[in-house]
């Protein structure tokens, strides 16, 4: 290794650790905001230019599926499924004589901020997107994000002045308290490395079946209740396991989502120890 190579390697290693430390201390937030301000128009143009190529490649890899039509059908399906889920939930709430006013007090007015997706995480590991709304628009960390069809998309995990990062529900770090609408079984919907969803901690006795709706339960205070996450895709249970293995299909088309709504009226609660 030449002295020059050694010097560059040392510089890269030191710069990496210094930048990571500075980012942890939020020192770099203004720089990140300015960078996204400057580069997002360039990124938007690049995305527009490469989209036809991407669609062509994806059509080939999707065995000829027409992705635009597919996207539209998924959006329609998401909206209709959400309406159905909400209607069912209303019926269940009325049947079980839950005072809706109590729910209304916890989640009084749905105030949303519409945003466009401006950037996506570059690794194959994380599921993070950036939107063009930040603290100046009333967007803050912890607020939840839904799709145009009102399905759960994720949580604001970092808010800059005019941009924010959303950790999608499919991210391996995401965990959402959830309930199966039909059986009222509770669990936690967690993201996976392959951008799929699992519902964990569903007891062996719970009557969960394919096609059941999965909604946020509101337990823990991080998410408001009754927001549709998806539908049960598969259920597997073995005698040896404590819990059933439930996989969930998310309703929102997260891989190519372009517009989202940030629920700015919801303030997440942090539960304290009793």
């Amino acid at each position: 290794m030449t002295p020059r190579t050694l010097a560059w390697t040392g510089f890269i290693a030191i710069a990496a650790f210094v930048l990571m430390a500075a980012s942890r201390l939020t020192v770099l937030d203004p720089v990140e905001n300015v960078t996204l301000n400057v580069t997002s128009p360039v990124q938007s143009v690049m995305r527009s230019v490469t989209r036809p190529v991407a669609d062509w490649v994806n059509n080939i890899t999707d065995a000829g599926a027409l992705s635009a039509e597919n996207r539209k059908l998924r959006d329609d399906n998401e909206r209709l499924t959400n309406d159905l889920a909400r209607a069912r939930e209303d019926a269940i709430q009325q049947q079980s004589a839950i005072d809706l006013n109590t729910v209304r007090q916890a989640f009084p007015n749905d105030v949303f901020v519409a945003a466009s997706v401006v950037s996506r995480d570059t690794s194959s590991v994380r599921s993070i997107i950036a939107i063009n709304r930040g603290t100046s628009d009333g967007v803050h960390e912890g607020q939840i994000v839904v799709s145009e069809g009102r399905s759960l998309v994720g949580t604001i995990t970092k808010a800059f002045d005019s941009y924010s990062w959303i950790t999608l529900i499919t991210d391996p770090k995401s965990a959402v308290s959830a309930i199966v609408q039909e059986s009222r079984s509770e669990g936690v919907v967690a993201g996976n490395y392959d951008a799929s969803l699992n519902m964990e901690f569903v007891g062996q006795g719970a009557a969960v079946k394919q096609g059941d709706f999965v909604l946020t339960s509101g337990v823990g205070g991080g998410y408001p209740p009754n927001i549709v996450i998806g539908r049960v895709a598969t259920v597997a249970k073995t005698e040896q396991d404590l819990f059933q293995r439930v996989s969930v299909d998310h309703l929102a088309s997260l891989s190519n989502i372009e517009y989202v709504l940030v629920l700015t009226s919801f303030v997440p609660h942090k539960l304290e120890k009793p």
Partner: protein
Amino acid sequence: MRYWTGAAVALALALLQASSMQQFKVVGATPNLLLVLLVSWLVVRGLDDVLPMIAVAGITIGFVGLQTPGLVLLALLPIVGLGLLREMHVIHSDLLLVLALVAAATVAYESIIVASLVATGGGYDVIAALRSAVIPAALVNVIITPPVYVVMRLAKPSSRHNRLAY
């Protein structure tokens, strides 16, 4: 001058990677054109030429690619070790060498991202990470390597540039 060119190419590719490559998701993995280009550049031009590009690309992606700034820089650092392997001339075919190095660099890159995720509390199923993210990413990157490598070879301004070693 060539360093400025390399830095400009790295900057443009970092923006392209952040803005567009997610649209090309294949078998659940996003092609990392930037990583493939850096490794191809390493094989064609050598370690000294690729180091400034790693710095520029890593810092840029850190700010526009939604990873913690510095993490991508750290994830690209194993390319230096791979550059030292290249100097040993263990594999004599340049194409085989670049394919092997891209696979190794991708595994190292994605593994560092996974390690950071685990260290900050999440994604503890490392086997699932390997199966669902790291290996598919390596495969996709290996698939896109040959055309990138050929372009790099043809762009090399030296007397050797017309000799494609397969």
